[in-house]
């Protein structure tokens, strides 16, 4: 079909790609927007008693942003994944509805003459994130500036994190945020992306050595030779060290899980994964011995009801919120009863958006959100499985893992399945760094989904065509 079109009346201008329709993406985006419009109407109905959207301007702006992104992708003419954007847009939209529903004064920021509340700020960041994701999806055509400079990227990421450590401001006892002018950010959100790039590049280069040149540890148990393992373990240890000292346990868990996943993908050695898990258990026990706040987290997880008005309060109230939601939820705006003008769950917009969704949209809403993550993870892994080379495969799988594992860690914490750690729910939680970092993930995954025009053929196509992708598809 594309072949026919290429020979048709509209010749492609040199330097300009031919637009490529993305019907699947458009259909899914329309479905997502319809769902969000219904959510907004239900919130509006509850607030005013009239059937009108709660924040029509916000909804229109979000829809416009998504459609612009869609058009840009169409115009770019690349053969990019068509499901990732709608799935992320669904999660972002649910997050936007939740932020519009929560009291707007939870976060207030003055930018120039404007005073923006929680919902406005989230919309602003969603817009920036959408632009970033689209730009990366369209523009990222080569891994040349990722792969060779892996140490530079990693060093930069660690430097940023170290900067937070020195100049960062404390929020809830953790030094996680870096303040630049009116904006503050959490560099650990970006470090996760950089680490995946580094891990993927290093493992792609050394995976055969790591898998085959084994050193005997005990009896039949072998490990990769230390000289080949050292750079990656050093990098991991540095990243873990910094986030652990910063008390960002969720990020530490995420980094480690993603590392183990990539190590398994690269070497296929289950013993390495088991050893890694044992090391994890030992490290966790050590942390629990050293840091009282880790012990406290574990105690709250095991029995929040031991201190229902103190340490256990937040988690207990979250569980009550899930319970109040039941199967279908109270409806947007009808849950989260305020006691004395206060929300029942402290930090609901950053740490417990899933509890808010669980209460107002019910188990149905929670399962829908979880399913959306699985869709993103599934698409990411598909892209990995279809990748042309090991680096791209590991990069795509690592990015998919970052989203999936982070969602599991925070959702599991909210549902009292694992100890609670303060990381964000990707695409849903309030916060610019989180949205931007996850936008980079989605944008990169989309870029990686473009497998070029044809299967890698020998001899190689001319450089220009390879970079831009040939207009001729395999049909």
């Amino acid at each position, binding site marked *: 079909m594309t072949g026919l079109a290429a020979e048709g009346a509209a010749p492609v201008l040199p330097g300009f790609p031919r637009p490529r329709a993305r019907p699947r993406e458009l259909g899914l985006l329309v479905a997502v927007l319809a769902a969000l419009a219904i959510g907004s109407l239900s919130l509006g109905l509850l607030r005013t008693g009239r059937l009108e959207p709660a924040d029509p301007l916000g909804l229109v702006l979000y829809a416009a942003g998504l459609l612009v992104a869609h058009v840009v992708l169409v115009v770019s003419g690349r053969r990019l994944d068509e499901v990732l954007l709608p799935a992320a847009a669904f999660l972002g939209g649910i997050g936007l509805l939740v932020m519009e529903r929560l009291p707007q004064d939870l976060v207030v920021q003055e930018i120039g003459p404007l005073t923006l509340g929680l919902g406005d700020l989230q919309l602003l960041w969603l817009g920036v994130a959408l632009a970033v994701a689209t730009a990366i999806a369209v523009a990222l055509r080569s891994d040349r500036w990722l792969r060779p400079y892996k140490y530079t990227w990693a060093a930069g990421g660690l430097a940023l994190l170290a900067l937070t450590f020195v100049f960062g401001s404390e929020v809830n006892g953790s030094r996680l945020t870096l303040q630049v002018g009116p904006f503050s950010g959490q560099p650990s959100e970006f470090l996760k992306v950089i680490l995946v790039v580094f891990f993927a590049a290093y493992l792609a280069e050394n*995976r*055969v050595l790591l*898998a*085959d040149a084994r050193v005997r540890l005990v009896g039949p148990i072998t490990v990769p030779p230390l000289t080949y393992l050292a750079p990656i373990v050093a990098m991991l240890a540095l990243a873990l060290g910094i986030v652990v000292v910063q008390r960002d346990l969720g990020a530490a868990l995420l980094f480690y899980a993603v590392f183990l*996943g990539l190590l*398994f*993908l*690269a*070497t*296929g*050695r*289950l013993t390495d994964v088991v050893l890694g898990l044992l090391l994890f258990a030992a490290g966790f026990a050590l942390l629990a011995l050293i840091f009282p706040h880790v012990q406290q987290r574990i105690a709250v997880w095991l029995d929040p009801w031991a201190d*229902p008005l103190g340490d256990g309060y937040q988690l*207990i*109230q979250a*569980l*009550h*919120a*899930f*319970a*109040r*939601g*039941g*199967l*279908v939820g*109270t*409806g947007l705006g*009808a849950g*989260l*009863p*305020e*006691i004395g003008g206060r929300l*029942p769950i402290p930090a609901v917009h950053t740490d417990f958006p899933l509890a808010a969704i*669980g209460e107002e949209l*019910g*188990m149905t809403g*929670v*399962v829908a959100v*979880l399913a959306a*993550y*699985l869709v993103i*993870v*599934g698409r990411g*892994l598909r892209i*990995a*499985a*279809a*990748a042309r080379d*090991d680096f791209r*495969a*590991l990069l795509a*799988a690592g990015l998919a*893992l970052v989203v*999936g594992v982070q969602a*599991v860690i925070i*959702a*599991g914490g909210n*549902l*009292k*399945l694992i100890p609670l750690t303060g990381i964000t729910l990707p695409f849903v939680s309030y916060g610019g760094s989180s949205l931007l970092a996850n936008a980079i993930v989605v944008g990169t995954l989309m870029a990686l989904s473009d497998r070029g025009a044809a299967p890698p053929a020998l001899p190689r196509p001319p450089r220009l065509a390879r970079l831009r992708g040939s207009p001729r598809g395999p049909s």
Partner: protein
Amino acid sequence: MTPGRRPTARVPAVAVVLVLAFGILAAGSSYWQVIRADELVSSPTDAAVLVAARTVVRGKILDRDGRTLADSRRAKDGTPYRVYADPAVSHPVGYASALYGSAGLERAYTAELTGAGGSDPSSRLFAKFLPPADRGSDLQTALSLPLQRLAVRLLGDDRGAVVMLDPRSGEVLVLASTPVFDASGIGNPATAQERFEALREDEASPLLDRATLGRYVPGSVFKIVTAIAGLGSGSLSPATTFPEQPGAEEDGLVVSGFTIRDGHHAFTGDEELNLVAATEVSCNIWYALAGLDTGGANLDAFARRLGFGGPLPFDVPTAPSQLTNGGGPLPGGFLDEVELANAAYGQGEVLATPLQMALVAAAVANGGELMEPRLATALVDRQGRTTSVGPRSMGRILDASANAALVEAMTRAVEGDRGRLFTEGAKVPGVLTAGKSGTAEIGGAGEPHSWFIGFAPADAPTIAIAVIVERGGRGGERASPLAGRMLRAYFDAQP
């Protein structure tokens, strides 16, 4: 697992792990949002319940004949507050205060009384389409206000508790504890602070519900538990006698160097006592030997089936009754045979709540099957729809024939020639009464605790009772006559 294969070949394995992880998350969501939802949503700590408790007019709490025990008034500014019929019901009914939270039934049924928790899941599903309730459901209880008042009056200035329940259904008619307090004073915002602070500092701890939370040495009333364990495990029969028992009456029974004494030698002489006779004269030596024969494991197992060892299934919180302090090397957690022998007649480290001992009497009264005790019998919502709380069994403790022997023993303990010397006062004229008195030695100076548990009519019981008077002296002096007065009042009120 060939390492040479490309990473892409292993992607499906990673996908499976992640799908499993998300499956577990969905299971976690259904656990909290469906399986545990009812319990969490009607808990007094739920935010929605707390909000409703401040704004919604609570429903009434009613006694078994429809008398109002708790009602709502509105202050001048429109905020609702609670008033209570009588301090005599203050412990089971509890209080609800905007300042000091809630207690008793007021706390346990906060969600229902304020209409926050629906009576069933389907009505809650549709409740979101209706305007919020401005008044909660009424709570129908099994309590009898006149009997409750009488119990408090008879206990007088003494500290103690009276529990009466219908052994056939578990309905609790009386759950009295003294000293009482004025719950209306806590409910009224104008007086709450002053009253509550005073009550909290009162060294008689009037806020403590002794009937459910007071743990007392039971003394001889615990012999019924030993008999149940012995008969139920087959270690004892109604005919069991101990040849060493009559001789030991004169100078005590020595168990591992510890001497157990008795005071009834004058009436029984050289007679070898069986179950009925030993119960009638409350023979410590016979029961110590019976306990040693039954063994710690059986005693522990049957005590647990009767409710010992944990909180009871009940509307309001209960303290766990115990056989031992736990941790001993012998089966059942006993330290040695001395502790086991002493526990068999209710000393040692045995502690029991009055409600727990009432359940022991109720189990025997109901032919060996124990019913769950309960205060609430029904909820009536604003539309007049009634949701009943049906009786629930805690299981059969003893088979009918073994139980019959125990009924006879307890009947003789009240009606028999020798038993009357101990429990004279419990006898109800014209009604065959069964029971057991107890005199709990608690060490130190002062009088022992005075106990009685029993039921009537012995041949077809409709009511079981437990009475304790702290430092009330011997069981026959204080608790037995008090129980007799309560039982008489109960039967006088029956048509």
